[in-house]
């Protein structure tokens, strides 16, 4: 337990101890942390797992402390818990994700009936800035990775440059705008279930596409552009070829595809097919990563259609996004998911106030 003369002194100490992401934090007083623990509905000493690379033990109390620091409302706590539990799954390869020189960060996608009520944005600027729930839930996860996992830049988090998504990269799927079932249905959840999906990715790469309603090939062109961004010349997916990738279709683009008869499954299949490249392209750019064989042969860059994670987010307009991935780690940079346990919280005193 730290002691400080006032909030400014406490903040100075937290910065000096390397316990922040560089931005000011809410001071995690015992009262604030206790209220966040109450919001979890769990005992403070419940262990969620060990956080790599340094193996710190993530208890509910420690997660609550970082959740307070991130500026979360107690309503956000179940989402933070689910996201932390998701990235602690062995398949996420958190120690490797935290340690690599690549700029991978957890992209957190929220589905479920409570997301809009909780204020988790899915439309304009969903990845920021300007949405408290999105910014603070993702930031809480990052602070857990920093403070419990020990991922200090240049010491144990070796990302050469990093990117702003490493502060926070959390959004909801725009379910009410989507012509497709919720992303979480791909993992077997029912519509309306509250679920967090996490995938380690780069930041969003813009996909600019203008539909031509008179051209029946127009939807196919959108899929071609998406595939070109996945296998862009700088992408690990082109060279390592093991990872999942995420595709955020804006609602307008999603309707262009749906209106032409495309489903999520056929979109995944087509993008997967289009992400095959001639072996010679790899040899031309980064020959060390060229698999054996003839340069004219086509090489797949995404392991399967299911590794193309398609969801709907953002506002209507010309721009969708692709999130290329690291495409490495023992499990190959795959998707993980976790149900959000809501309705278990104890009554939280002063819930309508600030944290």
């Amino acid at each position: 337990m730290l002691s400080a003369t006032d909030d400014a002194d406490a903040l100075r100490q937290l910065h000096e101890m390397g316990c922040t992401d560089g931005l000011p934090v809410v001071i995690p007083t015992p009262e604030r942390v206790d209220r966040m623990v109450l919001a979890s509905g769990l005992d403070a000493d419940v262990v969620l797992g060990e956080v790599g690379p340094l193996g710190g033990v993530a208890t509910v109390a420690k997660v609550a402390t970082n959740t307070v620091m991130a500026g979360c409302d107690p309503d956000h706590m179940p989402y933070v818990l689910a996201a932390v539990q998701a990235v602690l799954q062995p398949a996420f390869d958190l120690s490797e994700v935290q340690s690599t020189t690549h700029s991978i960060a957890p992209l957190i996608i929220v589905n479920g009936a409570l997301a809009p009520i909780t204020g988790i944005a899915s439309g304009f600027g969903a990845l920021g800035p300007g949405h408290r729930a999105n910014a603070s839930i993702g930031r809480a996860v990052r602070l857990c990775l920093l403070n419990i996992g020990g991922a200090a830049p240049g010491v144990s988090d070796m990302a050469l440059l990093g990117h702003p998504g490493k502060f926070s990269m959390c959004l909801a799927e725009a379910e009410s705008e989507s012509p497709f079932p919720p992303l979480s249905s791909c993992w077997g959840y029912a519509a309306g279930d509250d679920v967090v999906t996490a995938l380690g990715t780069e930041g969003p790469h813009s996909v600019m596409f203008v539909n031509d309603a008179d051209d029946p090939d127009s939807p196919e062109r959108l899929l071609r552009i998406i595939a070109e961004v996945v296998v862009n010349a700088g992408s690990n997916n082109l060279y390592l070829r093991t990872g999942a990738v995420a595709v955020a279709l804006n609602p307008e683009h999603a309707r262009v595809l749906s209106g032409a008869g495309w489903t999520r499954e056929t979109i995944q299949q087509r993008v997967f097919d289009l992400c095959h490249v001639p072996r010679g392209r790899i040899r031309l750019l980064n020959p060390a990563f060229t698999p054996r064989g003839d340069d004219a042969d086509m090489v797949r860059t995404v392991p399967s259609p299911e590794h193309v994670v398609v969801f709907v987010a953002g506002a209507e307009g010309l721009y969708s996004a692709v999130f290329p991935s690291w495409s490495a780690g023992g499990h190959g940079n795959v998707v993980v998911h976790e149900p959000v346990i809501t309705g278990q919280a104890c009554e939280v005193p002063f819930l309508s106030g600030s944290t």
Partner: protein
Amino acid sequence: MRGVAVVALVTEPFWQQGDLIALSGGMPDVPRIRLPHPVAGSSAEEMAALADQIVPRLLEVLRGESVADNPPALV
């Protein structure tokens, strides 16, 4: 892995990370030899020269005839 002799080769920018990973992995004393950076992208000639420089010492450390570059851990 218990019983298997090992020496970790760590390039300069990753030296501190190597210390932390060795510690968190429960092997703070695992021998480590410092390499110049970068190694990736070296020419075959450069790689051979580096091997000529490193391998004799690496074998000495494996045999226990020489100490590694990391000091014995205090914990």
